[in-house]
């Protein structure tokens, strides 16, 4: 950097600038000034998101949509490819087709999350100044949040880790940024479950914010056995990057994740005087909706509708449904056991309210996920299976 300061700059040093100007032609040498003019825009015109992202992945043409030719210049020990078609069962006519409906490239993404952070910090200052903690039911605060918001943190953290191999292996650039942002939101969520409890400790010294309580629930509690095993299996047993993402974002998270975040914490917090948790969870739900739209673009708009391989892909998605749905439903049923540990609240913890809440999750999922790929689900049977877990 010292050199930079000492040296004369070609833009500002009059003599150098004059020499440069003398070499610049009066007219530009080409009329095409649009970077990425050859990229197929999703909408009417190419967006900055598309320009920055599309074809950054340097794959050869034998991986559909790639612009390069030939082999990889260095491979794994033993000769496995850097990237390859064999890393997923899905087939695509163009791995560069996906577009994030939110048009996120890096600055767009960090700006939004940075704003969320500032808003959250202002909220915490207000919450503490108001003494709003006083209204929270002590059982909810001292039992439920440490155990179950803590356990949710582990679920989110496991899902986050399920993305690492996906980010290594996936074969498209727009895919890679969508998966990366989804991953980052998941680790953020796990950190935010910790933040809620750490915040309470700060305004209520003596409150135990260690994650150990939630970890114990998650690893040993009966309420999370299937959830944990499902997450572990997505994270470490599954090598197909599309299967990992499909199981995570098209099955487990919109069912189990939504049941816990929206229908448990969001719905019940007001009944226990808790205005802190719903505020933090509102951020997670925003991320969920953004991710949902992006994943729908990948699995519904692109892969299910692929002009050559749509039918083939759909059959695989059905296979993955068969594989991952039962353990997800079991996870939801086991989670029902928690209701018995809550102080009762009419209109919130009675069986009818719980049934209605489970129905919302299942129905949303059937409409937004199962129906989209024509996967048949018996809604009332699924709801009944879940509700059978109520103690």
């Amino acid at each position: 950097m010292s050199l930079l300061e000492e040296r004369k700059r070609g833009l500002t040093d009059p003599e150098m600038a004059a020499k440069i100007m003398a070499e610049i032609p009066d007219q530009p040498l080409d009329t095409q000034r649009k970077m990425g003019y050859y990229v197929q825009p999703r909408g009417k015109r190419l967006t900055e998101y598309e320009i920055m992202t599309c074809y950054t992945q340097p794959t050869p043409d034998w991986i559909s949509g790639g612009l390069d030719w030939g082999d990889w210049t260095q491979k794994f020990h033993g000769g496995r490819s850097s990237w390859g078609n064999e890393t997923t069962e899905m087939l695509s006519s163009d791995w560069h087709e996906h577009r994030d409906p939110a048009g996120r490239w890096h600055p767009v993404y960090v700006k939004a999350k940075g704003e969320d952070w500032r808003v959250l910090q202002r909220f915490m200052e207000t919450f503490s100044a108001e003494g709003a903690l006083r209204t929270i039911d002590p059982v909810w605060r001292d039992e439920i949040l440490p155990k179950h918001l803590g356990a949710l943190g582990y679920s989110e953290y496991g899902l986050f880790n399920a993305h690492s191999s996906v980010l290594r292996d996936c074969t498209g650039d727009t895919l890679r940024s969508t998966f990366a942002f989804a991953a980052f939101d998941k680790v953020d969520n796990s950190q935010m479950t910790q933040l809620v409890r750490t915040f309470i400790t700060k305004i209520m010294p003596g409150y135990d914010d260690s994650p150990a309580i939630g970890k114990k629930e998650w690893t040993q509690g009966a309420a999370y056995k299937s959830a944990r095993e499902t997450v572990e299996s997505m994270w470490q047993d599954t090598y197909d990057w599309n299967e990992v993402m499909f199981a995570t974002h098209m099955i487990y998270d919109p069912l189990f994740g939504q049941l816990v975040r929206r229908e448990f914490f969001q719905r019940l917090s007001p009944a226990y005087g808790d205005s802190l948790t719903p505020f933090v969870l509102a951020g997670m739900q925003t991320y969920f909706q953004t991710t949902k739209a992006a994943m729908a673009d990948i699995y519904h708009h692109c892969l299910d509708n692929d002009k050559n391989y749509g039918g083939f892909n759909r059959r695989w998605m059905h296979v993955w449904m068969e594989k991952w749905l039962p353990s997800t439903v079991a996870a939801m049923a086991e989670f029902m056991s928690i209701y018995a540990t809550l102080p009762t609240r009419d209109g919130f913890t009675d069986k009818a309210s719980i049934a209605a809440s489970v129905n919302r999750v299942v129905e949303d999922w059937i409409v937004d996920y199962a129906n989209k790929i024509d996967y048949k689900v018996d809604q009332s049977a699924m709801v009944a299976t879940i509700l059978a877990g109520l103690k």
Partner: protein
Amino acid sequence: MAISLATNAATDALALNRAPTSVGAQEVHKWMQDFNWDFKNNRTKYPTKYLMANDTKEQFKLIAKEYARMESVKDERQFGSLQDALTRMNAGNRVAPKWGETMKVVSNFLEVGEYNAIAASAMLWDSASAPEQKNGYLGQCMDEIRHTHQCGYVNYYFAKYFHDPAGHTDARRVRTLGPLWKGMKRVFADGFISGDAVECSINLQLVGEACFTNPLIVAVTEWASANGDEVTPTVFLSIETDELRHMANGYQTVVSIAHDPAAAKYLNTDLNNAFWTQQKYFTPVLGMLFEYGSKFKVEPWVKTWNRWVYEDWGGIWIGRLGKYGVQSPASLKDAKKDAYWAHHDLFLLAYAVWPTGFFRLALPSKEDADWFEANYPGWYDHYGKIYEEWRARGCEDPSSGFIPLQWFVENNHEIYIDRVSQVPFCPSLTKGASSLRIHEYNGKKHAFSDEWGERMWLSEPERYECQNVFEQYAGRELSEVIAELWGVRSDGVTLIGQPHVTKEGKLWTLDDIKRANCVFKDPLA
């Protein structure tokens, strides 16, 4: 905690404490290391022969939201400068033509490194077991997305404002045409993501970032600024602020494996291979881009190289890792020899195949030649004379029908491509250390230009099978290949690559190339 206790605590505390309070990133981060849990199959999908310790910490203790806030502050500054002051000053156009061409390559090729580093950091995040170490790699994964987009933005900006937008607009499509691309992929793409995870970390973080990031990112800003380009420093210095995290990650990788006996066995070999891999491409390519791709010179490349690669990296940085058993690579000596002439050798070849570029090249001017001779005594007798001959034969003028590649054929100077590094070399004309070795394997011939790469291939030939441009294009006429791989401008006939950057000079078209009737030939066939 028992309810009654907590409730008492609450009552006491709340009576006292209603000061506005919030939570800082560090207060959340301090629990990070507890976010993991053990389970049966908790192991990485990318095996490494090393063992990464479970308790490895990270140096930059960020949580997701704080990361986002910090990066968006940097973005505001960067985009503010670009879109406001620099645009009003027309800074995107007031750049020395040669340098504006150089940035077509620099920004796009760096982008490839950044993009592959996303996948590389993700692989490391997968292979680390400590949550803090995972978090460090995750931060890098996000940074590399940022850098990918930033590099893209430099080309995007120049596409809008520079007087020759071709190549800035379509580098991602046309870059595969020329002979520099595959070598680029070896160092900055496959070398980061294909192999033992720790070996990849050594390539990416310990060598790519700790060693060549300085010359690449910082030195580029100095050359840019001298040549009127303030766009590149605005972006690249912002990239550089994230790189500390990545070098720290590389350091932590070594710390995490240091106690494993495998480290003593393999680490120095892997480091030596990684160093040679990276330097084999970057030493000549960076030197060439700086010295031959600029109007105003900053300092001889050999000086930059000695300071940053040899002294700072080979000495200080590696020295700091000495307590973990890391030694300066054995190949550093050979690399030092190459740092003097290798980039001059490469430019000779790069210029000879200028029609396959996505940038305009220029023969050294009289001023350049004097500078070269002053800084590299002996330059004129070996290289300068050849350029004079080419110029005299009209290599810049489309009506001459002369492409310097033909001169190599006429004079029996065979051009080979090293199988491992994919870097072209001409054994009969080289002043650097390259020398020809040929091996046959499975009925196919492979050329190599140095002992270190040859050794890598001999022990694992299945890792280096990529065909080179001469094999791929053999038997085909040059203009045909150019047209097929999108090497033309928006008029459909004028080449993107040109052999000069003068205002007066005519631009070559596909027809001009066709008249020269250059047909590719594979020297190994």
